[in-house]
């Protein structure tokens, strides 16, 4: 994880929109600020950042879908996040921004609280106690069936999860923001972002992502 978002975007631009609006000046690190303010010959800067973010999300989803659990953790290690101040109020906590998949939720003492799909409510509802805690995945939040009974209000819950950052234009112009994915995934991100830029549909992009990540498995 040493490649910056800026260098990746420049690589993407070389494929889909290599020059500034004048059609002749090649976009590079030295004129990235000019590109950000005047756009490329084909796409405006926000479009390009969107392509890039969509490519990354498609890649993360494909890895999550197709990789076995232990290997997934290795590949997505760069996307692993810890929120050590998750706040439960009245038995509910909002999912973090960019949340993809939870790995481990606990209280401040590392006592596990499982996160379950709501289809499991009938099976689990009678098992909840203060030493056998659970929450359920409801839309944009995690919620306990019994409110604060077993999940007291606190801002010290710990959530380890895979989450993907949505980069913004300043991450590109600043030059210091580092891509979350490990470096060996860089060509695939570019390839997927290019597919998005070429207006391939989501189905085609997802299929390409699946093909790319399964190729890495072999």
């Amino acid at each position, binding site marked *: 994880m040493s490649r910056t978002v800026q260098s990746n975007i420049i690589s993407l631009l070389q494929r889909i929109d290599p020059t500034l609006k004048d059609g002749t000046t090649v976009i590079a690190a030295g004129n990235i600020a000019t590109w950000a303010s005047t756009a490329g010959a084909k796409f405006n800067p926000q479009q390009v950042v969107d392509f890039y973010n969509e490519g990354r999300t498609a890649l993360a989803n494909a890895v999550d879908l197709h990789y*076995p659990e232990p290997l997934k953790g290795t590949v997505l290690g760069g996307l692993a996040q810890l929120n050590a101040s998750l706040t439960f109020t009245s038995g509910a906590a909002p999912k973090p921004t960019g949340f993809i998949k939870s790995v*481990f939720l606990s209280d401040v003492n590392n006592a*596990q609280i499982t996160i379950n799909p709501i289809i499991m409510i009938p099976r689990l509802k009678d098992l909840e106690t203060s030493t056998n805690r659970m929450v359920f995945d409801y839309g944009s939040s995690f919620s306990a069936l019994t409110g604060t009974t077993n999940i007291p209000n606190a801002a010290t819950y710990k959530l380890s999860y895979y989450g993907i950052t949505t980069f913004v234009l300043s991450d590109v112009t600043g030059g210091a923001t580092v891509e979350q994915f490990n470096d060996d995934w860089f060509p695939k991100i570019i390839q997927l972002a290019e597919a998005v830029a070429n207006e391939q549909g989501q189905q085609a992009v997802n299929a390409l992502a699946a093909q790319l990540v399964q190729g890495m498995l072999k």
Partner: protein
Amino acid sequence: MIYSTIYKLQDAYRIATADIPGFDYNSPIYNERFDLANRAQYITQANLADAVAEDYIVDTSINLTGGNYSTSTGTYTAATLDISAITMNAVFTSGDVGKKIGFRIGTSTYLARIAQVIGTAEIVIAGNSLPAGNGTVADLIVFASNLPNSSSIDISSIGLLRYGSELAWQIVSDATQSVNMMSRESFERFTPSWYGNVNAIVWCLVGTKILFNQGSNLASLGNITLRAPVLPSVLTADTDYLRMLDGAMCNIFITVYRNLIMRRIPGMNVKADVDELASQIQALFQSRGMQIKEEVVADKVKALISA
């Protein structure tokens, strides 16, 4: 009751799940770990009882103990068979339903049983020859649920392992050293005054009750202790030690536990650990100086993984 000195439930869960490729630790199975572990304990013990039943023998006192008594008078209403406003040394609870009681109204004494607990100081009773009129209840006694009644003791509240049934049980009394199990037929023909029986206590099991009879020289049954194998006590905390003997039994338990966990994983192709279980069962019997035939091992393995 035996306990592992090595494995707590949390250890068994960690070991069992670590052997499952791709196990999702954030799954409903975590919340079901107690249910599954308790089931695994019962399966393991039941199928290996011929080797381990003795490990689970405990002494249970089945004497008249633990009853409660009134510390004030109460009001008896004949129409509703209700006793109310009576203070007990320990308040009535729903667990008192079915227990026998004795009480006094005036100079008459009565026996009944608790049909319903209305409140902490109020009950509805049932029985024969109860008072026809209202009155003031005094000296109310709630007998323990295991009260010997007509020389029988109800043992349904004891979680007994019924392996070998009463043949594996022992009953001792401080009234005599001669306490003998009998068949129902022999029990019915027991003659208390026969010279060989005068100092003996005999018993037989009928359903969930142990029937007793005693020789004519004995004033009472004495303090009776039932010495019998029981079911493993329920695991309720991650830090509870397994109710399994260290060694082969713990290993077998973990394999059975893992098998039960794998069955709950959608799409998991459960591979039964047949060879592993077979060798562990062999080890268990050998460690106890017992022989076991291969076909018996195979039957036990089948029972353990398909239970």
